[in-house]
């Protein structure tokens, strides 16, 4: 097609459609750009900054930046990898992430990114913040100890489910995901089949009574790093 756009990612020529973001264009050609708050089908948020790439020498989030003719994108550089690793480590210390008993372990995108980046222990001191759990709902619970504020539940509930069950409140360290009810999650119109429940990349929003269903060794990230599926697409 004549209206295709040419960009380069790490020196490799990539053909993209004008409506695509850098992340989507890369993904289509088998180049994995690590991400957390991005989710296919949702309006990009650009908040986790893990997909930060250098676009013509400037840092930009790949999930929100549209492709433009002649863009020179750097993705897999030592500097960017170090930056992403630092963000992931900060996410681990600023929440209470107890992987050893978390139902999401093995299928968690935050944990999987830490595995991919080879993080054995975060270099920052743990904060052990005070967070709360709301298990009032019949089928779903929200454990804010594990929340990384990616906003995927907020966007899914608003844009896919049309319900506005979740919203951010507060700022800085006080920021948290609130629910659209006076008191409890059980007071909202959230249902277990809502997209917002599926959207959580970590173990903050969980379905009840289905935990640990998949044995260790058969879970999503037990054998292959996150992004391997995207990179396998490059071989085609």
């Amino acid at each position, binding site marked *: 097609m004549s209206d295709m756009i040419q960009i380069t990612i790490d020196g490799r020529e990539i053909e993209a459609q004008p409506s695509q973001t850098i992340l989507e264009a890369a993904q289509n050609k088998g180049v994995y750009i690590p991400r957390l708050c991005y989710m296919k089908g949702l309006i990009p948020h650009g908040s986790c900054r893990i997909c930060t790439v250098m676009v013509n020498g400037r840092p930009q989030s790949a999930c929100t930046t549209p492709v433009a003719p002649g863009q020179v994108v750097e993705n897999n550089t030592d500097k960017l990898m170090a930056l992403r690793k630092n963000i992931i480590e900060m996410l681990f210390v600023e929440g209470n992430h107890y992987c050893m008993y978390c139902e999401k*372990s093995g299928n968690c995108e935050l944990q999987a990114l830490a595995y991919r980046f080879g993080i*054995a*222990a975060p270099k920052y001191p743990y904060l052990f913040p005070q967070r709360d759990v709301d298990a009032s709902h019949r089928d779903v619970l929200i454990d804010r100890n594990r929340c990384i504020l990616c906003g995927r539940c907020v966007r899914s509930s608003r844009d896919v489910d049309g319900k506005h069950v979740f919203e951010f409140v507060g700022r800085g360290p006080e920021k948290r995901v609130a629910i659209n009810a006076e008191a409890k999650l059980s007071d909202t119109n959230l249902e277990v089949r809502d997209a917002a429940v599926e959207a959580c990349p970590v173990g903050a929003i969980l379905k009840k009574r289905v935990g640990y269903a998949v044995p260790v060794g058969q879970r999503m990230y*037990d054998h292959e*790093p996150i992004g391997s599926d995207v990179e396998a697409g490059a071989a085609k």
Partner: protein
Amino acid sequence: MANNGKPKLATTSLAGCFGCHMSILDIDDRILKLVELIEFDKSPVDDIKEFTGQCAIGLLEGGCCNEENVEILRKFRRHCDILISLGDCAIMGGIPAMRNNIPLQECYAEAYLNGPSVYNPAGQIPNDPELPLLLNRVYPCHEVVKIDYHLPGCPPPADTIWEALVALLSDKPVDLPYELVKYD
């Protein structure tokens, strides 16, 4: 004890559950190869209580929840060339660290006064000088002393421990495959 010129290995369980030590034993018959490579020093494996000399490697299970843990950890740092945090408790406090956002008074009250199975008519909270004092919170080992390597897992798989020890004892970089570095 005769040294035979072999490097020494010390291990300990601080605020841990001994699960990581079970994982050490889970190397199975490779433990026979291990004792060809090293000699166990202070460790629950051979029940040696005090260091007999300088050790090449110290394996630490558990974080620091009381003053005794800190003392032993510092002793390990002094007596070991390489210190390894073994498992999630040593690395991030683990299950004991779940008390970290509950005030210490409340923890004591729940354990000795208000807990559903507590029988304590005198209402005493143990306070013998023999007992190590609890710290205000549980600390990961690397927030107390310098730690050289971290092997995550709950527990770390036996293969992870084996591969790391063999690499260190043969002066090779500890470069573990993807499947051996897991947090659960």
